[in-house]
């Protein structure tokens, strides 16, 4: 029998059975399921565990307490991360960037390696990876397991439940809160996770705004800036708490940016009604603590760190070359930084940071090591020209940035904002292209956050400078 005839027959029957076939079939399946379940299940008395679940849910998803509890939980996680990572970070930094670094140089001298080779390998490749490990490993080793525990406990779906109302008000799909939270791990994963949204319009909104979720590569930048510059302005006992609060503030600014941009998109380029869906609140399950710590250390911490290290090694070599190839009196890096300095100044940042963001397009993880290496090498060569030699013992992060780089609190605040609002990394851009197959939407998703970042940092810088 020919297939067109078969399809015509089917169409004929479609008219015969009348409308709402989908609903009728769904209902029949439901009825059948109910009967089978009724036969199979016997219940004894009340269910106390359920009642406790519901009591907790009523508090954590209530209109009054939902958001304060959410902010408190996040602050708690960041506070533990910052307070816990301080000492190991300092020790690791001292060990890797001072002791091992000096030892490597003495070895190089002992085997009388050529200066350029020692410079390229030790000051370039080694130092970049050493910075990545000492700056990123301790906070990640604390933050990721804690965050995974929150997820396993069943708290994240409650956050999604709270945010659902806001997303609907913004004209977006409630499931966007789920893809947004996947973005808190990795934006590329968050973009893929938008597949759970059926409507193409709402899915595009979710894809375009996913970059406003701080990802694994950006948490360390925020945590470091918060600790060095924001926390340091508070009283000693409060500094970790203030640092944590600053990171939470940026995260919440990210959520609001997501909502505002979603609302703007759904009223302009991507007009339409928000569709409804049902969000299940899964039962709370006691997390298996050791297993969670183990898997999040292996799955997230080491993978993210490895990605950072593999990116940092060639970047370190590149930065060393840029800083040591001279064009006239100045190194290539100095030329580039001088060229970018006016742009940096306008954004309340500096030329080094702008150059770092260009170098770090493949991975956000590179920002901090690139900034440190550039600041150190440029600062050192300028000081060396003035006849001063930097003592390596002074290479504490704060001293390097504030002393050599001339950083202020404004620089740190704007770096935190720019870290939230800039183009996605190249992996995410590629993922957006794969998911949308549209140059237009990929370009929008790439340039919109960058444009926002430029405007916001510029306004903040101007306001601070005018205000005094």
């Amino acid at each position, binding site marked *: 029998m020919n297939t067109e005839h*078969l399809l015509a027959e089917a169409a004929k029957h479609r008219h015969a059975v009348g409308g709402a076939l989908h609903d009728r079939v769904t209902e*029949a399946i439901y009825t059948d399921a109910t009967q089978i*379940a009724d036969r199979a*299940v016997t219940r004894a008395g009340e269910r106390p565990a359920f009642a406790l679940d519901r009591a907790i849910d009523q508090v954590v998803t209530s209109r009054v307490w939902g958001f304060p509890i959410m902010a408190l939980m996040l602050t708690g996680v960041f506070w533990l991360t910052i307070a816990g990572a301080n000492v190991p970070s300092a020790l690791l930094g001292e060990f890797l960037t001072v002791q091992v670094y000096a030892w490597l140089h003495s070895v190089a001298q002992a085997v009388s390696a050529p200066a350029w080779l020692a410079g390229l390998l030790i000051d370039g490749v080694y130092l970049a990876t050493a910075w990545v490990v000492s700056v990123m490993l301790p906070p990640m080793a604390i933050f990721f397991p804690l965050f995974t525990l929150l997820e396993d406990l069943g708290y994240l779906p409650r956050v999604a439940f709270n945010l659902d109302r806001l997303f609907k008000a913004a004209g977006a799909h409630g499931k966007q809160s789920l893809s947004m939270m996947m973005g808190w791990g990795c934006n590329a994963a968050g973009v893929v996770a938008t597949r759970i949204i059926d409507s193409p319009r709402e899915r595009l909104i979710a894809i375009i705004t996913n970059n406003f979720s701080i990802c694994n590569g950006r948490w360390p930048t925020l945590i470091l800036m918060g600790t060095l510059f924001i926390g340091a302005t508070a009283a000693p006992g409060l500094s970790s708490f203030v640092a944590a609060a600053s990171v939470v503030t940026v995260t919440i600014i990210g959520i609001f940016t997501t909502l505002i941009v979603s609302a703007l998109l759904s009223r302009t380029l991507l007009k339409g009604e928000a569709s409804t869906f049902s969000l299940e609140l899964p*039962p709370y399950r006691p997390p298996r603590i050791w297993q969670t710590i183990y898997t999040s250390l292996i799955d997230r911490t080491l993978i993210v760190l490895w990605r950072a290290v593999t990116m940092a090694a060639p970047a370190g070599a590149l930065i060393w070359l840029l800083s040591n190839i001279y064009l006239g009196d100045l190194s290539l890096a100095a030329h580039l930084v001088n060229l970018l300095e006016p742009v940096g100044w306008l954004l309340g940042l500096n030329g080094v940071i702008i150059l770092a963001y260009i170098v770090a397009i493949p991975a956000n993880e590179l920002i901090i090591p690139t900034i440190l290496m550039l600041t150190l090498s440029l600062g050192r060569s300028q000081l060396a020209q003035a006849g001063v030699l930097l003592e390596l013992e002074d290479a504490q992060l704060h001293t390097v940035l504030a002393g050599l780089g001339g950083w202020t609190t404004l620089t740190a605040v704007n770096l935190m904002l720019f870290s939230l609002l800039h183009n996605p990394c190249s992996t995410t851009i590629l993922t957006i292209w794969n998911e949308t197959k549209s140059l237009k939407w990929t370009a929008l998703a790439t340039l919109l956050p960058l444009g926002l970042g430029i405007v916001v940092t510029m306004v903040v810088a101007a306001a601070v400078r005018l205000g005094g």
Partner: protein
Amino acid sequence: MTEQALTPDMAAAPSAQCATCPIYSSAQLVKLGVDASGYDYVIALAGNPNTGKSTIFNALTGLRQHTGNWSGKTVSRAEGGFRFREQRYKLIDLPGTYSLLSTSTDEEVARDFLLFGRPDVTIVVLDATRLERNLNLALQVLAITDRVVVALNLVDEARRHGMTVDVRSLSRDLGVPVVPMAARRGQGVPELLAAIAEVASGAYPTRPRRLPLRDPAVEQAVAALVPQIEATFPGLPNARWVALRLIDGDASITQAVRDGTLGALAPTMALA
């Protein structure tokens, strides 16, 4: 657990009693991780979100895919392999869905795999504490493929809530084996393996429940269309379901009829 630990002559059960013992069964499991090459059977893993699908996937393959506690965790499909009683199995973790009737990407991925991927066995994971809603998906899966094993997971949680599920009644109603499990604690894994092996080899003949329609007009239309579908695509295992989807005007099934993809599902071709 190395491959050498199980030489062929060791794999044969020392005695008849051993073959049915759970401890012996689990000793026969060789987790192969991501290595799913040279398999004998393809096993699909379906279920609602948050029923412990990923936990079961990890228990069988030895992989450590992070298990999420919320819907939408697994959007695309993950693959892994294991070996049990000298047979190699390739396990495919489908996205967690509540239904197979809508058009969101995750549901289409799951449905297309069941329909066109033709797995040898499909494990449907059900949450024992939410049996009624979970059965919706099970009934829809049974309409597409008849080789199904139901993994009734979280029976420990159901017990804590004072619920008991009569496994035999469920198995009788659905016409397929039902294995009670507490996968988080590893309970029920040996029994699940045994059930998979029996259904895969055909030792357990399943009698899957027909999709209920409960509507004379729809029933009549389906009954009229099924013989025509079977004439066009001989050997198609799910003509009833295809008929229903065609009457509903499902675009992707219509397309599959038109371009002959559905025809490729006839048993002889599917072996290729």
